[in-house]
């Protein structure tokens, strides 16, 4: 449905004399993946890894520096391709902050109807669409339609945001931490609603979150990002059961168990992610990776070739038999015992 190829976004840092460009934040650096029709692709990673920049690039909310986007066979924003207007009719986004993404001076009904009106729908019809959608997201239109955003709770506002995103009848929704700001009991309500809407409207989701449990629950496939790059991508069960990349393994073992008897005594990783302004050479995870060798600093690991929806790929030299890493080609479990991920070097 959506093919992303070599997408890049470097934010310039200016300073010094004449405000020259002194460096850049490599927020998204050469990212390629596909989103399949009707699936939910989960994107996980720590803060600053470029998840949200990626979402904004997909929506064309910020211009990209390099790379191409193909939506349903048509290039986006190029000659004879899909125009931005058409793209945004087909692809919509829900943001984390439910309040700041609604116009505080419009009743929510009008906020939802705004998009269709801009795209040429008669006023009365747009209003009807808005009311239907409110019903669909579980808010009674006669009760909530004329309210203003400040009169709604966080969960209700996020439902309105989902309705607003659906008003143009899009085929794809990008959910950028859409449930992260909600309380657990409300988060569960909205997640159930999202699953229902996906079935009902035949939607494709790109679900961005830092909550690994939520991503596991809602996704069909998962993409793991680290410092602006894709480190691992694959079907959800395969990734959660047999993670290949040392970063993914560490991330998963940082999940907190709900069992008080199962307490972690040793953190799987030390230190924080390095600065994306000057990412480490070669593999970007090597500064925190306990299994890093010389080859990891020398060259960047390739992620391999994507074949079909069951492909499980990781950008790690240990996955590539010809890389020269001493653990290359070994069975994944032997390569990375979970307790060995303790003594990593600090940046």
């Amino acid at each position, binding site marked *: 449905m959506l093919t992303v190829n070599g997408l890049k976004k470097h934010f310039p840092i200016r300073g010094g004399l004449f405000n020259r460009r002194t460096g850049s934040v490599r927020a998204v650096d050469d990212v390629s993946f596909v989103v399949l029709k009707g699936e939910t692709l989960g994107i996980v990673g*720590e*803060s600053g890894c470029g998840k949200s920049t990626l979402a904004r690039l997909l929506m064309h909310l910020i211009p990209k520096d390099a790379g191409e986007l193909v939506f349903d066979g048509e290039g986006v924003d190029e000659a004879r391709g899909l125009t931005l207007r058409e793209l945004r009719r087909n692809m919509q986004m829900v943001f984390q902050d439910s309040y700041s993404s609604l116009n505080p001076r419009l009743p929510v009904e009008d906020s939802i109807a705004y998009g269709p009106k801009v795209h040429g729908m008669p006023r009365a019809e747009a209003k009807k669409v808005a009311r239907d959608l409110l019903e669909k997201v579980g808010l009674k239109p006669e009760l909530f339609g004329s309210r203003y955003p400040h009169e709604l*709770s*966080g*969960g*209700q506002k996020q439902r309105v945001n989902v309705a607003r995103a659906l008003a143009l009848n899009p085929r794809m929704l990008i959910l950028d931490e859409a449930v992260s700001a909600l*309380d*657990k*009991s*409300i*988060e*569960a*309500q909205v*997640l*159930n609603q999202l*699953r229902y809407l996906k079935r009902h409207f035949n939607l494709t989701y790109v679900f961005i979150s*830092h*909550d*690994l*449990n*939520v991503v*596991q*629950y*809602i996704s069909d496939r998962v993409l793991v990002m680290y410092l602006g790059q894709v480190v691992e991508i694959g079907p959800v069960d395969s990734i*959660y059961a047999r993670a290949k990349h040392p970063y993914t393994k*560490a*991330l998963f073992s*940082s*999940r*907190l*168990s*709900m*069992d*008080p*008897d*199962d*307490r*972690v*005594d*040793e*953190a*799987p*990783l*030390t*230190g*924080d*992610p390095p600065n994306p302004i000057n990412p480490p050479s070669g593999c970007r995870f090597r500064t925190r990776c306990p299994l890093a060798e010389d080859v990891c600093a020398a060259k960047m690991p390739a992620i391999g070739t994507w074949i079909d929806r069951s492909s499980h790929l990781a950008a790690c030299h240990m996955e590539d038999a010809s890389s020269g890493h001493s653990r290359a080609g070994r069975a994944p479990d032997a390569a990375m015992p979970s307790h060995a991920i303790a003594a990593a070097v*600090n940046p």
Partner: protein
Amino acid sequence: MTLQLTTSGADLQVPPAPPRPLVEVKDLTVKFVSREATVQAVNGVSFEMAPGEVLCIIGESGSGKSVTMRALMRLLPKRRAVLGGSMRVADYDIRSLSERQLTEVRGSTISMIFQEPMTALDPVYTVGDQIAETVVRHEGCSHNAGVARALELLQVVKVPSPERRLKAYPHELSGGLRQRAMIAIALSCRPSLLLADEPTTALDATVQIQVLILLRKLQKEFGMGVIFVTHDLGVAAQIADKVAVMYAGRIVEYGNVRDVLTRPRHPYTLGMLASTIHGGQSRDTEIETIPGNPPDMRRLPPGCSFAPRCRYADQACTAAVPPATAIVPGRLTCCIKAGHLTRAVPQSEIA
């Protein structure tokens, strides 16, 4: 005389009486009064905490958990917040302390760490100066001695290359290091009570676990009591001895962490556990949810605040606020239906 002897003899038989609780909060109420409305943020919270214990207060946003913490530290705005009830920490009656006494108590007896270290640290002073300032203020030593102590403290909280970090400004540090620096300030005068208000919520998963392990280790080393506020049941499972679940400004359930998380006895705790997604949850089934929304704190429903969302509720629940009842010693629940709860989730799915 004989009578006295027998009593003292009997006293020798029984195990030594438990030490006086470090914290005693009785019937704490906090109301925020403004011209438009009165928000009843905390509605009669009572608990006790032994020295060296870790108490986790769990609750959703607006449940009054942070307000309770701030009340303990007397950080609430004086004009707007109307307090009731009593609070005692160590030998201090918190509500009757003068401003001068407060500055003594804060830092040396009670310390607090916050969710967002960037706003809690002063951006124009180096981390070393900020730690040293606290030490100098409370121990009256020289600035140099304070800086030496700051270096020690940064080593205690496991900041890598502490000499360099001493001279760093808060914005030069990563989120994890900032939170460690804040813990260093909080611990600089060896408080007997540390209040931690969601200290790991803003951190990434791989950093959160590091800070949790550090806090647990320091708590044991310093032997201090910790009240840890969180909305994350996983965090509570990692760090707590005791757990208090708050809803609409009241503690609805209290007990050992294991008991509360594996055998909840309040419908709200049950529902919260069921609606929290855990690893390995079946993708084919819907998540169990608590219907409805948390109550409006300006207009609390009569009786049990959870009754409008509760599947077990009947008329008796809305008649009066259910009292805290001890099911077994040390285990409290505020639910008149506690005996009739059926499990919302099978035992196997809890872990």
